[in-house]
């Protein structure tokens, strides 16, 4: 099993906000991005942008996204992304492909 650094949720939320703002929302202060802002409906993250976000989550949090069942709904808001990351970090080691 891989070693993981367990971070408090508040830090994860902050990191997600900073990534989203830096990557997709130039000129926006991270604090202005509400956790429930709809990133899809408001055109912040396109389908290509989503791949980049998932890639970042994989690298930043060491989440094996390739092995997880992921749906776009997991990434609709900062809160949803935080929950996805939180669940993945606390999930048991065994995972199935299907």
């Amino acid at each position: 099993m891989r070693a993981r650094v367990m971070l408090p949720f508040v830090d994860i939320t902050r990191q997600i906000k900073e990534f989203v703002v830096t990557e997709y929302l130039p000129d926006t202060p991270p604090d202005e991005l509400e956790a429930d802002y709809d990133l899809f409906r408001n055109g912040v993250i396109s389908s290509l942008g989503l791949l980049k976000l998932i890639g970042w989550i994989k690298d930043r949090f060491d989440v094996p996204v390739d092995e997880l069942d992921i749906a776009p709904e997991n990434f609709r808001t900062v809160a949803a992304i935080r929950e996805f990351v939180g669940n993945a970090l606390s999930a048991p080691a065994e995972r199935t492909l299907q």
Partner: protein
Amino acid sequence: MTTELLRDFIAHTKREPSAPALRTRTEIVSYAELAARAGRAQKELDALPPGPVAVLARKSPQAVALVLGCLAAGRPLLLPPIDLGTVALGELCARAGCVEVLAATPEDAAEHPDVVTTVIGGHGDGPAVPQPVAVDEQDTAFMLTTSGSTGAPKIVPLPAGAVARFTGWAGEAFGLGPGEVVFNYAPLNFDLCLLDVWATLRHGGCVALVDPALAANPRYVTDFFTASRVTVVQGVPMLYQLLEEGVFPGVRHVVVTGDHAPVPLRAGLPRRFPRARLHNVYGCTETNDSFWHEFDAAEAAGPGPLPIGRPLPGVVAAFGPDLAPVPPDDGGTELLVWTPFQTAGYVTPDPAAATGRFVTGPDGRRWFRTGDLVRRDAAGRLFLVGRDDFQLKVRGIRVNLEQIERVLLEHDDVVEAAVVPAVDGAETRLTAFVRGTGPGRLSGLRLRTHCAMRLPRAAIPSAIRLVEQPFPRTSTGKVDRKRIG
């Protein structure tokens, strides 16, 4: 007449009921099963008040069955962009005269709870095949949308006769019959589906439906393409970019459409589809496909854009305001077309928008102004050189820069707005520059929400930059887009 589409679909169902009609990531749906689902959908539709309906559906076998059910019931069928804002969506359905807004699944309905009126799930009893009612060839079959210069999307009604002629041509041209597998990448509301989905189901082939949730995932798209044993593929350049890692010897026809395919992408096609004939097809929602050009490996790798080729059978072209039969040898003249597949005109509350794009020639022929400028080379081949207005395509969807600017300017705190496109690989990204009434009054996030309520998703700028200095202007007082940014 009954629609040829339904007539032939039912004939294939009776001849070979177990043949595959649809294939998805998780299931294969036979002609018999699809016909039964369409029959049940038609029966559910019969309980609703008469009139046009909107189908608000992500791509799925049930959504395809629902569309077939609507066609069989003889109901004009609006396919709106599913990602349109709620306000714009409601307005669009009302303008089309829809008596009901239908969803194929509870999940689709949940996307727009304020708009969807009925879920047609295809459950319960029904006939083994749909029971098509008689329609006239002028009766509207599909209503598709295209973005307008005046704000809201324009509705493009396609008559049953136009759909029959187009699906007839496409089936012959690409051989979409039994045993063939046609890859469908475009969302269900795109005009490309008239070939991928509807022409294929008319001719007895199988449609491989890409899961829209995974459509940007190269591994999924490539694996699904391979597993489906695709023989015919039509798509925008982005699709071929997603398929870049694979080699697909089973493909017979590759159709490139939409934006200009970048040369490196195009040059790779002969290697990745070694046994396929390659086609560049030109068209738009109002007229459907109008020109095509078959190209070989040498032309694929050559510099510069591909020609659009020659008119499809029955298509007539004219050039410039005088409707000249051949384009003058200058920098670019607007292409006008008349096709056997075209709409009679828009459904729009703005008569100017309806008439502007169509002109009637001296012989009474109703030409469509494509807005595309073309030039002719020494060999007589036609090339696109640009557009005569502020329209362009983002992820295969036509958007209008002036429309986006107008929407931004509708915001109370916006003084100036300019939208500037930039091409990034096969993708076009829009940047909006916005100046507000004072420092701190505007927020990029609130402007985004403002845009999302009023524009299709592809038209929401990728980046919104807030600026404080007045915009540079040209000598005639227009915003100088080239000097912004």
